[in-house]
């Protein structure tokens, strides 16, 4: 290539660069990111994330799907658009019993499916049983385990019955750790102190059902349904083995689950434990109802657009997978008068820059959480359409506590002490430093405990105490020659922001402890597999967002052994959580939960890093949509405002009204 040609090429490249720079400079002066022309019709165009796995609310546990389900299906309660507290939906009101172990829901009489059929309590009974049936393979079934016998039914366990007397064996006779039983001791109807204390006029004179009486008998013993598992369980407990001899095994049926339609419009749910938070859980997708007739007729094809019947504010109009899902206002919906949008177009997309481009040119009106790429934050954060709210989500670092040197709590603490989380939060810009395991400032009145603050001096001391003295070198830096660096690493799944966090941690440990931890990135599903099976040494990236608005959704990550990715399990911690959940007084319960949380952070099976913040954008003309802590939006309140005077300039007012 001649010199002239080379100069020509350079000029060409330079002009590309100029265009790029000029447009980013131009957009800096604008109050909003990109165009702000409302769509012509009352149509809301939203990027909800990955392609939905299914339109069946029992199947998927993803958040992109959750938002679609909220448009299509209704439940007993719905999230409040700002606070995410439960507010009445298909249940007009509800009553807990004295210890919140049993709830009565009073359904509204004008609930209808999109095909016009009335919604009754039986639809809830069917949907709950279906979600818990093994063949449905619902990823979320575990959220319904609080319901009496839901877990053993989902696990296909059996009751044990004496063929002579017809009596079932009870759990508490064989296992002291069985929680105290709330229902067995309490009267059948103990709703006196409830919020709605008027008597159930419509139920008066009706005899108590056999089912309800049975729910108030002591918790039955359950054993694994397969012979192999059962033999194992029996061999472990000789007393049990002796008692079971000569008895028959009765498979647990869907009808045994603690859900009962008292009449067409009254539903009773009996729990296995007190559940003051239970109503808040019921807005979750797994508790939203599906149409029995359609599901039974079409099987897994029932969600196809030509068959599907729904019960939410919107119904399916067209569905082109990987392209768009169009839902339209459902005139049958009980609260159709509140619904303001004609249609919502959900676009399944996962590439963040592509999504943001679409937003900028005004082809979508809002995007899902965590869509603004790190490199764009500087430009987008200052715009008035950036939605910066507290998020019920945390970032943390898991530690494989099963191998030395990380099985020593002093070593784990040393690594925690030597991370300056304040500095991290300042650098990351949108997060808040965290020393505990629940997100800060999310759960009102929760006395969140404080963990250890940044203290590299203490970290070095503890490391020395554990047998790895940290030496200060003449140039002021540290080294820890005895520490087996080949026994630790930091793994994360390949993503720009995870990499940034990994490098930050690496630098902190290098600077404060003189230890260089190797980083290893891997593809998402490989990463999950390695972490779950504890095939990593040292540290792993972790993050969790709330399933429901209660600290327990975080604390329960360490409730069951082996599944939390750290190998840490402590029966004491489990007992503390159980005790807290038995508390009737919400304040006392929160105190005990906080105590358990303190216990957890002292054991340090993980290093808390930050409370996440929402990170998305919506056009100023989109009203009724708030950056709430779970990024879940009740769509019936969302509307397009055409008068610029009424637009949202900045984050809309989040105080509940």
């Amino acid at each position, binding site marked *: 290539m*001649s010199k002239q*040609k080379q100069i*020509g*090429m350079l000029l060409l490249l330079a002009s*590309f660069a100029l*265009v*790029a720079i*000029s*447009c980013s400079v131009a957009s800096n002066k604008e109050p909003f990111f990109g165009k702000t022309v409302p769509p012509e019709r009352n149509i809301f165009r939203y990027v909800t994330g990955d*392609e939905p*796995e*299914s339109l069946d609310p029992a199947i998927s*546990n*993803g958040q992109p799907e959750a938002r679609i389900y909220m448009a299509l299906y209704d439940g007993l309660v719905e999230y409040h658009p700002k606070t995410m507290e439960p507010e009445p939906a298909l249940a007009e009101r509800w009553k807990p019993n004295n210890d919140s172990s049993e709830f009565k829901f009073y359904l509204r009489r004008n609930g209808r499916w999109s095909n016009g059929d009335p919604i009754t309590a039986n639809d809830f009974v069917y949907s709950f049983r279906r979600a818990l049936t*093994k*063949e*449905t*393979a619902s*990823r979320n*079934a*575990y959220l319904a385990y609080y319901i009496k016998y839901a877990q053993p039914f*989902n*696990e*296909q366990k059996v009751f044990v019955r004496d063929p002579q007397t017809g009596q079932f064996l009870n759990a508490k006779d064989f296992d002291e750790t069985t929680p105290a039983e709330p229902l067995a001791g309490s009267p059948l109807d103990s709703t006196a102190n409830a919020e709605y204390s008027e008597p159930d006029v419509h139920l008066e004179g009706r005899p108590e059902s056999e089912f309800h009486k049975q729910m108030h008998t002591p918790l039955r013993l359950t054993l694994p349904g397969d012979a192999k598992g059962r033999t194992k369980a029996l061999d472990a407990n000789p007393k049990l083995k002796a008692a079971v001899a000569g008895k028959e095994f009765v498979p647990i049926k869907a009808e045994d689950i603690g859900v009962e339609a008292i009449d067409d419009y009254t539903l009773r749910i009996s729990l296995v434990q007190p559940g003051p938070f239970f109503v808040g859980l019921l807005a979750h997708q797994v508790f939203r109802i599906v149409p029995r007739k359609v599901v039974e007729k079409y*099987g*897994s*094809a029932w*969600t*196809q657009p030509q068959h599907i019947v729904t019960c939410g504010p919107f119904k399916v109009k067209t569905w*082109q*997978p*990987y*392209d768009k899902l169009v839902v339209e206002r459902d005139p049958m919906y009980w609260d159709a008068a509140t619904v303001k949008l004609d249609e919502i177009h959900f*676009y399944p*997309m996962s*590439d963040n*820059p*592509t999504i943001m*481009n*679409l937003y*900028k*040119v005004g*082809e979508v009106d809002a995007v899902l959480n965590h869509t603004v790429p790190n490199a764009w934050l500087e430009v987008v954060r200052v715009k008035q359409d950036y939605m910066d709210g507290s998020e019920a989500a945390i970032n943390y670092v898991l530690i494989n506590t099963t191998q030395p040197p990380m099985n020593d709590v002093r070593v784990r603490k040393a690594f925690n002490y030597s991370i300056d989380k304040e500095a991290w939060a300042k650098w990351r810009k949108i997060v808040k430093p965290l020393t505990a395991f629940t997100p800060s400032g999310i759960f009102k009145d929760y006395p969140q405990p404080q963990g250890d603050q940044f203290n590299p001096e203490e970290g070095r001391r503890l490391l020395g105490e554990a047998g790895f003295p940290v030496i200060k070198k003449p140039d002021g830096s540290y080294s820890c020659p005895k520490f087996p660096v080949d026994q630790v690493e930091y793994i994360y799944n390949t993503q720009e922001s995870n990499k940034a966090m990994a490098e930050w941690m690496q630098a902190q440990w290098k600077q404060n402890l003189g230890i260089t931890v190797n980083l290893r990135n891997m*593809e*998402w*599903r*490989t*990463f*999950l*597999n*390695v972490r*779950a099976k504890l095939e990593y040494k040292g540290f792993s990236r*972790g*993050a*969790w967002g709330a399933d429901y608005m209660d600290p327990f959704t975080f604390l329960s*990550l360490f409730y*069951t052994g082996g*599944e*939390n*990715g750290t190998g840490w399990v402590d029966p004491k911690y489990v007992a503390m959580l159980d005790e807290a959940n038995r508390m009737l007084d919400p304040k006392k319960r929160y105190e005990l939960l906080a105590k358990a949380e303190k216990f957890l952070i002292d054991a340090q099976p993980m290093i808390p890093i930050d409370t996440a913040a929402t990170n998305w954008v919506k056009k100023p003309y989109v009203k009724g949509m708030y950056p709430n802590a779970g990024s879940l939006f009740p769509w019936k309140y969302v509307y397009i405002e055409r008068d610029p005077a009424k637009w949202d300039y900045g984050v809309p007012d989040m105080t509940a009204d």
Partner: protein
Amino acid sequence: MLRFILRRLLVTIPTILVVITITWGLIKLAPGNFYSGEKRLPPAIEKAIRDKYGLDRPWYEQYGKMLWSIVRHGDFGTSLKYEGQSVNGIIRRSLPVSAAVGILAYLLALIVGITAGSIAALKQNSRWDYGSMTLAMLGISLPNFVLGPILVLIFSLSLYWLPPSRWGGFPSRNLILPVITLSAIYMAYIARLARAGMLEVLRSDYIRTARAKGLSEKDVVIKHALRGGLMPVISYTGPALAFLLTGTVVVERIFALPGLGNYFIQASLNRDEPLLIGIVAFIAITLLLMNLLVDIAYAYLDPRVRY
């Protein structure tokens, strides 16, 4: 000739089976599951999911069942990730999208590439030659994941002329940017191949004879030179067309198109075994058929080639 085609078709079958088997083996070896998430599922629920899709059956049973269903019914089964969606249905739905973009890009690449290459050859060492070859060099060295965003930046984000992404049906303005992005590299290759081929042919004896016979330059180029000069282009564009038809991962992702390429990448990230096998098999079949077509076209264009 017919025998040749039949023989080639017969070889195709074991090739596809090998491809399917290797894909199946690789995805079985890959760590992770389609259902795994940030919080590990309780063991009972994991088991329910595995039982539902028969993932805990012995490997030979799973392999045999999959192969039988494919051979016997041409049915690749149901996607694991996308509940209730058949793999065949997904391919049927996404192929037109990929094909629309691919064929347009192919035509654009052929027209622009051959024209530019021929002009460059005919006017060797002229400004035209240098100009088009510089662009071709740029086209080859600029990967589509760079070119795509640059085009979007200019024509969508700055000028607001064209939509930056998404499928808008056929035909629509949404197609313009992906088609240009996709065709750039093919265009560049074709231009270079056409130039080289033409240069060689233009110097050959039969062209000199044609000129000596007093044919017009137009006739010499179009009737004689192009036919021989484009041979290298043909052998390149056959497999290229197969890849273009079956979707291109990067372009479909940048422009969020619901095509095969997008499904392909998602299926492997999701460990969606039936979907991945279906797409791989489909791409393999298309590729083999396109190669066969190239061979036939060769025989037709060059009388010296006989099978």
